[in-house]
């Protein structure tokens, strides 16, 4: 007997921006996300473009042999971090896995320092010793950058534990992917977080592939917003390609945490355009699939089209923004290519004896 069952994958909402609420509060669809004020819309355009251009350049520099180690690009997922960051206040912490460049830029870290870390230079955020996956910024409350799939989830839960212990009102946003969502530590963390009502937003970035494995081939429950249900953790499925929907959901989630309700899950339905890492040709999906998302759902193009359609910005103004962003990225790349390498004595620093 055939055991095969067809599982329907949660699709990226095709046209409208919908946020479905699942969890103890009941199932249903919230309204379309509210429009962004003009200055916010211009800002998210610039911020997302910065990540896109940074990543494109990182990909080129990797190809030129300037970047050693691994390099996981965030292209396609920009709306998730940019929208989420808008919901945070100073003091809130961010922690994520290895696809972390976008998170760092969204947190306000300097593109020069991030790029120089990718190229392994002395002026990188980790002095050229951490690379793509391992950077921190205490000033920007960014707690890494972690290479082990899902292991950052219990760290983020620990950070939230400290927030609760200190009663400081801060929320820890803990990002992980659809692949990480199948690791056991995630559920140990969910249990503890709900038990202690810890202020943590678990953002599951469902980009539909765990490395090369489609979620339908790896996950018994492909609606990741429901993964907290047996712990009584509410979840929302969010159109992660629409920065307005992301921002609105993140604001609800952060408020939920700050009000002392404990953890919450946001499943961001998103898509990565590039391979898992630079060494992944992504043969597990069709070119057409990628093209379809790019042309129909691109997070940056959505904002650009709205800005133009509403007359909030002209082509010329957007071109100026593009040029500004390119200049910053060019400078970062130039900086990262020419800074000195770390001194060999750095092998012995910051290690106990």
């Amino acid at each position: 007997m055939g055991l095969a069952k067809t599982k329907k994958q949660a699709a990226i909402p095709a046209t409208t921006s919908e946020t479905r609420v699942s969890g103890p509060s009941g199932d249903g669809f919230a309204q379309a996300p509210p429009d962004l004020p003009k200055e916010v819309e211009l800002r998210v355009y610039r911020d997302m473009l910065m990540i896109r251009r940074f990543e494109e350049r990182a990909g080129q520099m990797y190809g030129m042999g300037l970047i050693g180690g691994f390099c996981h690009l965030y292209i396609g997922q920009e709306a998730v971090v940019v929208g989420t960051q808008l919901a945070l206040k100073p003091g809130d912490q961010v922690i994520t896995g290895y696809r972390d460049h976008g998170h760092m830029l969204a947190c306000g870290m300097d593109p020069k320092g991030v790029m120089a870390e990718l190229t392994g230079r002395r002026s990188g955020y980790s002095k050229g010793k951490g690379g793509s996956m391992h950077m921190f910024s205490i000033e920007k409350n960014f707690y890494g950058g972690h290479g082990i799939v899902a292991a950052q989830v219990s760290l983020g839960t620990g950070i939230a534990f400290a927030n609760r212990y200190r009663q400081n009102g801060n929320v820890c946003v803990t990002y992980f992917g659809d692949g990480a969502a199948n690791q056991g530590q995630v559920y140990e963390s969910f249990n503890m977080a709900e038990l202690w009502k810890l202020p943590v937003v678990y953002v599951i970035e469902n980009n539909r592939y765990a490395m090369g494995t489609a979620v339908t081939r790896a996950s018994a429950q492909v609606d990741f917003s429901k993964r907290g249900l047996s712990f009584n953790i509410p979840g929302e499925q969010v159109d992660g390609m629409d920065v307005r929907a992301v921002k609105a959901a993140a604001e609800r989630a952060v408020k939920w945490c700050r009000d002392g309700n404990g953890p919450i899950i946001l499943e961001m339905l998103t898509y990565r355009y590039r391979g898992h890492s630079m060494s992944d040709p992504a043969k597990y999906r069709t070119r057409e699939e990628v093209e379809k998302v790019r042309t129909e759902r691109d997070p940056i193009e959505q904002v650009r089209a709205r800005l133009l359609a509403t007359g909030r910005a002209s082509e010329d103004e957007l071109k100026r923004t593009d040029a500004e962003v390119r200049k910053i990225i060019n400078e970062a790349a130039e900086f990262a290519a020419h800074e000195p390498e770390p001194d060999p004595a750095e092998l012995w620093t910051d290690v106990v004896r």
Partner: protein
Amino acid sequence: MTLVEAVNAALARALADDSNVVLLGEDIGVNGGVFRATIGLQQRFGRERVVDTPLAEALIGGLCVGMAAQGLKPVGEIQFMGFLYPCIDQLVNHASRLRHRTQGRLSCPMVLRVPHGAGIRAPEHHSESTEAMLAHIPGLRVVMPSSPERAYGLLLAAIRDPDPVIFLEPTRIYRAVKGQVEDNGEALPLDVAFVLREGRDVTLISWGAMVRETMAAADQLAAEHLDAEVIDLATLKPYDAETILASVAKTGRCVIVHEAARTGGFGAEIAASIAERALLSLLAPPVRITGYDTVIPLPRLEQHYMPSVGRIVAAARKVCQFS
């Protein structure tokens, strides 16, 4: 005071002295811990500071790192050494590297207390002694007391230390040894070996529960007019090579005793160091008396596995006769 009471006293002192200290582990609060090391602490300091966690060791490790990154000083408890393994990922990949990854902007001031070793009539994963595995990881401190006094002083030092410390507590002597401990809040130095008995003829090196058999062996050797020096290593990583080398320079002979399996055990590291740095002082090859490369057996076979006083004495006698 017994060793486990000394652990309890040090934890109480640390909780009283520093509001950043938080204890967490399975059954440590209401129940006072599987070995009763934390008994009474939740009643005294509250459930916010002595936290009963779910049965989830990876989580305990991860929580500790996250809390430490925020400046808390978490002291986690693992119930038995064999239950540590789900947590190894957090120790190796995060706890030991937080300082390095942040270029010293953050350290990881956590302690993980782990009962260590056999001799309590419990099967395999309740009786493990895999300290060499932990000592192999750069960035972790590994400490193991052998008396109530050192348990108290070294645990306080571990909690005050800015880096992650794995504090291995020898279960076999939790209650079997008693000693005078003054609860004065004074820490003992980490990274220092303790010379428990001075001698001229042979150096006996051990740590944890095995120090008791090693001291008994020294007594027997004295009856045979062999004068043994006994060193309690106390901190395995980073370990105090100077004290060992100075002793071997004096005696020219040494026996290293541990109950962990032989291959790749920490005795091999010490023997290698002695060979590298004190070869010309040696009058005999360094000898290891260890457990065997097998699974820790059930109680009826346990006495065959554990290094006995007799084996240590015989080995010491042999190295003293070597020429």
